[in-house]
């Protein structure tokens, strides 16, 4: 598993797309699909529903296939009583090499979202 990005997204109210992350060769592996996963700190989300979208490009960032998760905060206590971290992952079945990963958000208000983005061939 390779880490594509660790840091914080400066999320704004409404829709925003972030600078695409290049995927270096060798992560996906010959004949495998690329599985991209994001872990987000649950306490960072503002009240309301935030949607996060992962886009995968196989043409140098010209076009993206996308999947989304929506997260409605405040979250109820998870197992153990704390606020659970939130996750999103996306895999496309074909084995064409993914060149870029793009994240997008649609949030109710501005906030800072710590994230870790990883990728692995599966």
């Amino acid at each position, binding site marked *: 598993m390779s880490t594509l990005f660790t840091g914080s997204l400066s999320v704004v109210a409404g829709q925003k797309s972030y600078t695409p992350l290049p995927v270096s060769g060798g992560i996906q592996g010959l004949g495998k*699909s690329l599985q991209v*996963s994001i872990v987000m700190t649950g306490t960072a989300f503002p009240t309301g529903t935030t949607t*996060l979208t*992962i886009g995968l490009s196989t043409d140098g960032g010209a076009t993206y*296939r*996308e*999947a*989304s*998760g*929506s*997260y*409605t905060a405040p979250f*109820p*206590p*998870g*197992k*153990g009583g*704390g606020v*659970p*971290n*939130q*996750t*999103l*992952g*996306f*895999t*496309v*079945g074909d084995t064409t090499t993914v060149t870029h990963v793009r994240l997008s958000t649609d949030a109710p208000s501005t906030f800072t979202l710590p994230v870790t983005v990883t990728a692995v061939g*599966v």
Partner: protein
Amino acid sequence: MGIALAQSVTGTGNLTLNGVVSGNTLIAEQSSFRNSATTTAIAVPTDTNGTFVGSIAGTGALCAASTGASIVGVFYAVNAASGTHTLTFEANSSNNKTLSEFSGMATASVLDVSTSSKTDNSDITSQVTGTTGTTAQADELIIIGLALATTVGSSDVTFTNPVSGFTSLNVVPNDLSDIATFHAYKIVAATGTQAATFNWVVHEANMGAHAAIAAFKAAAGGATQAQIWPSIQQGILNPMIGRRYV
């Protein structure tokens, strides 16, 4: 054309897949921890562009000395409409979900056989799915899922990953602050009963595990490469058979 995974999205929130191809089958799995002894089946998720139905019977497992429950659900939508599908899942204390699109599937009566199995409040390092009845046809998609929880837990129960013969879709090894989760699939080319076993290393008393397995039919004529190859070889070696294709 045989069965193939088109795309899959995983996460803790409600999930959206775009660009779904008309006629494909959508499979949803949900592993949940309930902070109560409620083991009733997870509610069927709603879809903005279709209808899902449940594919397994049975109830979840009691854990944490019966103060909690771990439960897995497997759902499907046959002959999906094209476009965007957004699923809203049952809310629980902890949830991990997977929404996958498969091509090459039957467009009616796609669910063949299924079963589930559970272990309540025990110190365990494995959980079987149970064994299905014999599948009706050779080409089928096998989906498995696990929900595992306990009183305290570990950030990494150290699953055996992958489950033998399967491709993992969503693996969350944390039963400390989450519901430990394993969602996977495989494509088979012969009839028979189906079963799988999930294994992990870290264990303690009062673990509850619920596992499920479901088999879904391929479209008629959806022979896999493994099935086609012997026929081609036979045609090459037997000129009487080969002549039919000239």
